């Protein structure tokens, strides 16, 4: 029976003093005792609103019930049936806006720690032998472009449906943002590698070092290579810059460059790994989303003595997951809210010496519904820093659309795709994830990949394509 306890069972963590200087995962995970204790809190609601809050509608009460009953194989099976990346989503979903935001417990207490429990089950599953096997029953081959969460999930679903699938990835390793963006201390690469291992065991082929549009043209996939359908999951990797003076100075980087050097290239282990990654004594990160938190917390780990978040709005408008924000505070990140960067200051030799900022106050809501920041006259000051990292957003990479005819995009450069199927303006070409929505979340990308896999399956059954 459910047990009334107001607080979430806290997630055990790696000590803040220590972890601010290493790359070990911060959350160490529930023990079986923690998990059982927390699972008992779930009310097993008839109209479980938490399920509606989850973009892939995991039957949350059922899996939590299985945890409470100690039936781990069943819990794992329920999870995986709905979400092909539970070990990742349990770690990185913004639960406070999704499943946990709808939990009935919230009316009086803290919500059930759905994410922590999901992670617990998925981590247990990773200790078990992989049982997935190839099951190719269909003659059609499908190509997936991009090995981020949307592409990987789409590939996994298609393989389950019996198709042979090839995923083409531009970088030398699969995972998309999960590989190059989200740091080891939040999502260990071993977790990602395990999930990719499952896909490979299912017979999914992943070919890295191929840029579709350059190495292989999109049309060649159909015409010369015999693919029956294509899924595009190329993400939103194009970094934005502010266009303020001094942005080209040495020491200014996009968060993508910073994180790619560190994560994908392993630059935090320079010189053991060849790609250099360094920060000075003081680092300012502009922005307040997950990307900004990852960059600022990484700066401390790379040796910065002071690491600032510079954000022109207030704490309330911050886009990052609450947990990351709390961890960042514990680790000693210095938050400068209502501070707008105006100019990167040159030290006279082409390097950054500071960030000139202006204080802001909040005014009326703007088009996005958030309070509009208004500059305070005469409040300019220079924050002395050695590095400036821009984490102010990304847009879809135009590489593929520039080199492919007939793919429609909207004003923001996002692919135009049908909401329920992901079908683009090109026949038998589907798309999902950040490439369609603009920068969003892992679970939304995964959900889109899954939906498109079903849509591809239906499209191919309706109109069987002659073998090329």
């Amino acid at each position, binding site marked *: 029976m459910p047990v009334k306890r107001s607080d979430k069972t806290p997630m055990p963590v790696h000590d803040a003093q220590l972890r601010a200087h290493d790359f070990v995962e911060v959350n160490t995970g529930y023990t079986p005792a923690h998990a059982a204790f927390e699972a008992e809190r779930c009310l097993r609601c008839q109209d479980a609103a938490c399920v509606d809050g989850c973009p892939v509608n995991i039957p949350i009460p059922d899996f939590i019930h299985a945890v409470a009953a100690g039936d781990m194989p069943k819990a794992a099976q329920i999870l995986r049936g709905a979400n092909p990346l539970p070990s990742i989503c349990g770690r990185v979903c913004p639960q406070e806006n999704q499943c946990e935001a709808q939990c009935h417990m919230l009316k009086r207490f803290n919500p059930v720690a759905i994410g922590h429990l999901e992670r617990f089950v998925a981590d247990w599953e990773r200790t078990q032998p992989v049982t997935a096997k190839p099951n190719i029953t269909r003659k059609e081959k499908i190509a997936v472009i991009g090995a981020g969460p949307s592409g990987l999930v789409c590939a996994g679903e298609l393989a389950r449906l019996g198709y042979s699938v090839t995923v083409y990835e*531009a*970088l*030398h390793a699969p995972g998309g943002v999960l590989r*190059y963006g989200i740091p080891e201390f939040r999502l260990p690469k071993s977790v990602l590698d395990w999930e990719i291992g499952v896909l490979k065991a299912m017979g999914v082929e992943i070919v*890295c*070092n*191929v*840029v579709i549009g*350059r*190495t*292989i*043209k999109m049309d060649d996939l159909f015409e010369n290579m015999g693919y029956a359908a294509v899924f595009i999951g190329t993400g939103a*990797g*194009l*970094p934005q*810059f502010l266009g303020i003076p001094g*942005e*080209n100075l*040495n*020491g200014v*980087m*996009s968060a*993508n*460059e910073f994180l*790619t*050097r560190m994560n*994908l*290239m*392993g630059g935090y282990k*320079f*010189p*053991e*790994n*060849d*790609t*250099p990654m*360094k920060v000075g004594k003081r680092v300012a990160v502009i922005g307040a989303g997950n990307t900004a938190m990852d960059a600022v917390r990484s700066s401390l780990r790379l040796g910065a003595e002071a690491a600032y978040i510079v954000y022109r709005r207030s704490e309330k408008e911050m886009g990052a997951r609450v947990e990351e924000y709390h961890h960042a505070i514990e680790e000693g990140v210095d938050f400068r809210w209502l501070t707008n960067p105006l100019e990167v200051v040159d030290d006279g030799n*082409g390097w950054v010496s500071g960030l000139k900022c202006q204080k802001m106050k909040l005014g009326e809501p703007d088009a996005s519904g958030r309070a509009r920041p208004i500059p305070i006259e005469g409040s300019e000051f220079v924050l002395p820093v050695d590095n400036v990292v821009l984490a102010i957003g990304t847009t879809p*990479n*135009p*590489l593929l659309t520039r080199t492919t005819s007939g793919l429609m995009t909207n004003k923001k450069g996002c692919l135009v795709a049908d909401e329920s199927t992901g079908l683009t303006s090109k026949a038998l070409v589907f798309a999902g994830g950040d490439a369609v929505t603009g920068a969003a979340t892992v679970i939304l990308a995964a959900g889109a990949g899954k939906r498109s896999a079903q849509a591809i399956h239906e499209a191919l059954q309706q109109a069987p394509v002659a073998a090329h």
Partner: protein
Amino acid sequence: MSQFEIVSREDFSEVTYLLEVRHPQMARAARPGQFVIVMLNEHGERIPLTIADFDRHRGTITLVIQAVGKTTKQMQQECRVGTSLFGLVGPMGIPTHIGKPKKVLCVGGGLGVAPVFPQARALKEAGAYVIGILGFRSKDLIFWEDKFRAACDELILCTNDGSAGMKGLITDGIAVALAGHADVDECVAIGPPVMMKACADATRARRIKTMVSVNPIMVDGTGMCGGCRVKVGDDVKFACVDGPDFDGHLVDFDDLMTRLRRFTPEEKRAEQRWSDSCRMPQ
């Protein structure tokens, strides 16, 4: 079959070597002016190298590399026929626009000599009168003279010490060419930034359209990091996806050169560490 296998190698000098790598898809897709990103091994850096030649029948691409630092020196030591690269991706960048110039200078210096070759050949095939101008430090560093002679209508060789061709810098070669031809309508210049800057300055007065191929530090090469950004006129461009060719009269070379020094201490450290490890008895 291992991927990205090295099928032939040639050493032009102590510092310059050629690798021909098997990659049939890329050989089919490649166009002059494009480049690849290479990774020597799993822990290596991603480095950009121009596709100096490609052979669709053999299914290979050719890279000509100058050993200047850790990665390029390690490649010089380790890349033998039969070995493979860990990563090779491309062709990256926008192919050079081969217009219909009547008379064109193709200028290559240092690590730019090889990359300018496919452009010279393509321009020649497009019907242009091609004047090749190549700069080397001395006679023993010269390579591909025969290939250039075949692709160019005229070839001006410059060496710093005068041991072959005319004695002088590449800009002296340009001055000779411009003095002899009043009707040059285009110039392509590839080499170290200082050289490209000097070339752009040399053609500016006569308003000869001058295309340069910039070489900023890159990471992904797919437009994802912005590390390769260069100032071109009033714009900031990503060299890997918007270039690498830009109007030499608009490129801010000083900015490019400053940005190339971003990791100088780290580059030195990496190279030192590597050369120390090479000297250690196995």
